[in-house]
């Protein structure tokens, strides 16, 4: 792998922060047993400039960006973190780019067409994210999406030099692996249009639901629900969990080592989905007639209701007791065996 990468020309990456919280950079530098810098080096990826990490500051940094914008320095990959703020009144002035007399929106429009690949890191850069929530005070959007709709700052027809649309590494913040694996797969020339889902998220992590692999699976199957935060039970029925409706391999890999949202005891908020920020009362499940309004992504409602009723009636006492506790209070044992 290492030899193959170094045999090819180097691969340059520019990272820009727009209307961001900086959390996607924090996630990226969490990646790798030997450290992110070492990993980039191992794959022959050069950091042309990164606002949090590079030495060059002020006019030195502007000179790098100017050379890329003019085409004098070729660029393989542009990563953008943060929403693109178009306001006020289309001026982009909510996000000035320090020392340049320009806005971040302006720099993006100049640099993106020069990049062979363009990656939106995080749900803000992908779709608008939290800053695009009502009342969207800054007219925030994503690079190529405005919520779920194509468009955004660069427009529906934008293609990077490779011919690919902006790749949306959605998540708030995304798993460090989603970011790094996308960068390296691009560097290896692995990405084709059909490796992206319908809204340009990499299928390698977006092809499953956040629910898949959830450690609360038995509680889900029996509809043994947590009634309050810190309970062990399924978080879908009462506590707003959207893991059955949101994409991600969230529960198939560890976050910050061994974690995940549902492992941490709180619901999935569907942070990989456009418009997730529009939810009101994240910690409650909206219900109509005792049935959750939002059902698992591809499950017919009648079946869900029927199966839920059946599984609730079949729930072992152990499962229903543990579901309403913050620790296991009853252990599994063979049916009919004497109580401990």
């Amino acid at each position: 792998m290492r030899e193959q990468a170094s045999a090819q020309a180097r691969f340059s990456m520019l990272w820009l922060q727009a209307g961001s919280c900086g959390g996607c950079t924090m996630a990226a530098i969490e990646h790798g047993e030997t450290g992110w810098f070492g990993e980039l080096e191992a794959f022959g990826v050069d950091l042309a400039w990164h606002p949090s990490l590079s030495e060059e500051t002020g006019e030195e940094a502007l000179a790098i960006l100017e050379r890329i914008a003019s085409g004098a320095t070729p660029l393989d990959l542009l990563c953008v973190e943060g929403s693109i703020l178009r306001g006020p009144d289309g001026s982009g002035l909510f996000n000035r780019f320090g020392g340049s007399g320009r806005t971040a929106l302006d720099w993006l429009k100049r640099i993106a067409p020069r990049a062979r690949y363009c990656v939106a890191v995080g749900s803000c850069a992908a779709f608008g994210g939290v800053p695009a929530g009502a009342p969207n005070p800054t007219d925030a959007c994503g690079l190529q999406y405005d919520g779920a709709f194509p468009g955004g700052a660069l427009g529906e027809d934008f293609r990077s030099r490779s011919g690919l649309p902006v790749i949306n590494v959605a998540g708030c913040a995304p798993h460090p692996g989603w970011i790094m694996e996308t960068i390296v797969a691009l560097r290896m020339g692995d990405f084709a249009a059909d490796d992206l889902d319908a809204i340009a998220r990499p299928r390698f992590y977006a092809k499953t639901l956040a629910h898949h692999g959830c450690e609360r699976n038995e509680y889900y199957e029996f509809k043994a629900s947590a009634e309050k935060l810190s309970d062990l039970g399924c978080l879908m029925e009462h506590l707003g969990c959207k893991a059955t409706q949101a994409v991600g391999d969230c529960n198939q890999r560890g976050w910050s080592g061994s974690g995940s949202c549902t492992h941490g005891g709180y619901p999935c908020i569907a942070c990989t989905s456009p418009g997730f920020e529009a939810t009101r009362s994240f910690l409650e499940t909206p219900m109509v007639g005792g049935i959750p309004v939002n059902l698992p992504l591809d499950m017919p409602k009648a079946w869900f209701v029927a199966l839920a009723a059946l599984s609730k009636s079949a729930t072992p006492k152990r499962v229903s007791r543990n579901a309403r506790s913050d620790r296991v209070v009853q252990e599994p044992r063979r049916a009919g065996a004497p109580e401990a």
Partner: protein
Amino acid sequence: MSRTIVGPFNRVEGDLEVALDIDDGRIRSAEVTTTLYRGYEQLLDGRVPLDALVIAPRVCGICSVSQSIAAAAALRELAGGRAADNGALATNIAHAAENVADHLTHFYLFFMPDFARAEYAGRRGFEATAKRFKAVTGEAARDVLPARRRLLEIMGVLAGKWPHSLAFQPGGTTRAVGMGERVQLLSLVAEFQTFLESALFGVALDRVLALESLAELDAFADGPGRASDFAAFLRLAADLRLDEVGRGPGPLMSFGAYHGADGPLFARGLRQGDEVASIDAAAIGEDVAYSWMREGAAHPFEAETVPVAQKPGAYSWAKAPRYRGQAVEVGAFARQAVDGHPLIVDLLRRDGGSSVRGRVVARLIEIAALTHALGGWLRALRLKDAFCRQLEIPPDGRASGLVEAARGALGHWLVARAGKIARYQIIAPTTWNFSPRDREGRPGPLEGALAGLEVGALGARAPVIQHVVRSFDPCMVCTAH
């Protein structure tokens, strides 16, 4: 006199622009511009109060836990209850892990690389400094990222993930830690301590915790700690007289941090010279004379946030927080000075105020103190007890959550009406430190620290400007939020 606009000011969190009036090799005055406004206070308006736990942490991906606990503290005050003891301890553990990670990131990735800049080539020890601390390619950058990553595995065990966790609730934390997990967490802390003792301090943590004066610090740097990164900084600070630059405005404020049954680990208060007074939260107000904001009430329980893109004289998206009309400095130096840490108090007296050196020393001392505290909090968990208590949030009321982020005092002020947020105001640490002028023309702390600075023939390119700005460890994404 010439005016120079410096930016993008990188290796801070977010982006920053500084306008400098330079005359005869000296900065006459500075204007600090916060370049980004996302409107978080507007985004929170009208939501149910508990949704602040989802939205507020996303103000900042660097001090996300701090934003979470400020929101949770405000909600807890609104509910009028207490968190479960274990939940308070688990919150301290996650908060300290984040704080230590922030200090570490600042020292190794943001601050030290400036000493590897070409402007310093030829100075004593430059080759060794550049080899160790060069941005991206230096040895230290390679060493610190794996250590930081392992430290943050504390979040995976306790809080699901980092950044942006929902584990921090008004009543405690959402995952009960078991016997095996406590051991996992203690192992992570021990492993991190090994990194500190080999690279950052070069001596056992206990010896760093015992440092009580500048004389002892110098003896450490010349003696047993000689090969450490801390000592490398102290030599650079002595060589470049970093104790003489970056003077803050005087008042040092801390909201107090890491609360437990016996009160906070680091005390709350306002220090001016040798006097430490209690804080009157009603004396906090924000001025918007030079902000791209509409004029309105000053106190965060009454204030509005209405951006105005065109406003004569305005130059920043940040408001200007003042305490009794004064600019105050916040951060690790202020926190340790208010708490009366003997070494920091000694530096404060000898330097005649805060300085570039003082701020960096305070952060590194705090890394040691918090790593030590992590072990204590982990052992104090009572594993058979609850971690989260259920608190009812009333539909109406007002409350504040005043906490400490790594970079200093962080406040959330919340007004609820009919079950919805009617007002949410945030004052972040760098809002204090990097505020613009107020209506009286008083500069913010960084503006004051830059005024009068000798920059010589290099003018706006003088590296000392980089040291002064980064010594505050600014978080610009938090600043205007």
